[in-house]
């Protein structure tokens, strides 16, 4: 996935500050989480959003000068510059507990299949597209990752390196 660049650029706050018309703004990122998953914008107060390469966004707590040329900055967060923006598993595990929309809850069997990277036919009467996938852990629903729901099927989006037989 790496394009070799190690330069991180802070996202512009709004459209008015944007120089690259394809680059996402902070405002758009907040709107995406709010509109798609119901995650309130204040969840990300104190965080800054950064782009490295084309479309790969990172979320970071500190505020270094932009651009900053280093190997990593916080966590990968969101893939933009494509028709449907896609949150990362890390972002969903960390912030998905605040989601109130497009959340699909799996039973234990389906959750194991999801984490192993398997696709599965499932009934879902909500929107198609990327969903927050949860299951019960230690007595509460816990976000496990991102699924893609299309054509009656939940497709696991767990990256190969994170798949496990639990």
């Amino acid at each position: 996935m790496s394009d070799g660049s190690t330069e991180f650029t802070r996202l512009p706050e709004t459209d008015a500050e944007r120089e690259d018309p394809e680059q996402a703004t902070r405002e758009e990122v907040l709107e995406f989480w709010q509109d798609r998953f119901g995650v309130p914008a204040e969840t990300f107060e104190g965080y800054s959003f950064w782009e490295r390469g084309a479309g790969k966004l990172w979320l970071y707590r500190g505020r270094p000068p932009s651009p900053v040329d280093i190997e990593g900055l916080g966590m990968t967060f969101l893939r933009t510059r494509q028709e449907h923006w896609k949150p990362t598993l890390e972002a969903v595990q960390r912030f998905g507990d605040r989601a109130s929309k497009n959340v699909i809850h799996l039973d234990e069997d389906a959750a194991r299949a999801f984490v192993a990277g398997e696709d599965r036919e499932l009934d879902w009467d909500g929107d198609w597209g990327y969903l927050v996938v949860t299951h019960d852990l230690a007595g509460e629903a816990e976000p496990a990752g991102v699924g893609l729901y299309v054509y009656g099927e939940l497709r696991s989006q767990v990256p190969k390196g994170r798949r496990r037989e639990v």
Partner: protein
Amino acid sequence: MEPLDRYRPIIDDFEAFIDACERPLPSAVRVNTIKATVERVRTALADTDIAHDPVDWHDGLFVLPDDSPGANWPYFHGWIHGQEEVSAIPATVLDPQPGDRVWDACAAPGSKTTQLAALMDDTGEVVATDNNLGRISALRTNTERLGATTVAVTHEDGRNHSLKPFGGEGYDRALVDVPCSCEGTIRKNPDTLADWSLSHVEGISGVQKGILKRAVEVTKPGGTVVYSTCTFAPEENEAVLDYVLDEVACEIVEYDLPLDHAPGITEWQDERFDPRVANAKRIYPHHNDTGGFFCAKLEVRAE
């Protein structure tokens, strides 16, 4: 165990020490408080029938007598991280506070980096440096799985660490957990001593001195630097501290550690070290049935 024989004069109950070094060590995990509480991890481990024994000096650590840490729900969620008991010592001694700026000078694979971020409630900034891109990849993977959002990773030799990317600002604290001859990890990796040589010990000691010196230089006066190794060699431990006391403005300070330990040694073979190195702590495998470790706490002084 032959390279360890040279420590006979400095280790009490040397036979018990060698016996402990020959016993394997079970897996241990640290609770990642960025994503979960100790209580939820305990419940999740119990629900999945994973035996987990508490560790008396640190309530966020569990020994897993029957399991490896990597294939279970709490691991997948980044609630736990495989980390040996003694490896959790230096970050607790550094005691970073929420909002601090901290440098982790030899950060990969990131067990201590993520522990620092967790101790700071994932606020502030942890600049995590390593000189090896392969190990940086492991550091990034662990940082992501544990959900730390305050870790910035740089690829450089710690001896030449640059403050430039961050606008030149110094640090409140620094963790200097240096590459070492790893004698203390023999219970985990029985092959550790196969390639042991005194020339390697002496060579790596020069690198350790350079990194610790840089850490003191980039930490603000009044700030804290913790120096640690997982080895017993005085050349890599007290001799390195003795060197920085001469080179840069710092003091080696006393600290509490709720684990049995011995003080730093002030004499080794033909050398005498600054008496302040006695404030460092040596943790031997037979003391607490752990791996071996060395840890010193330094306070940075104004020039």
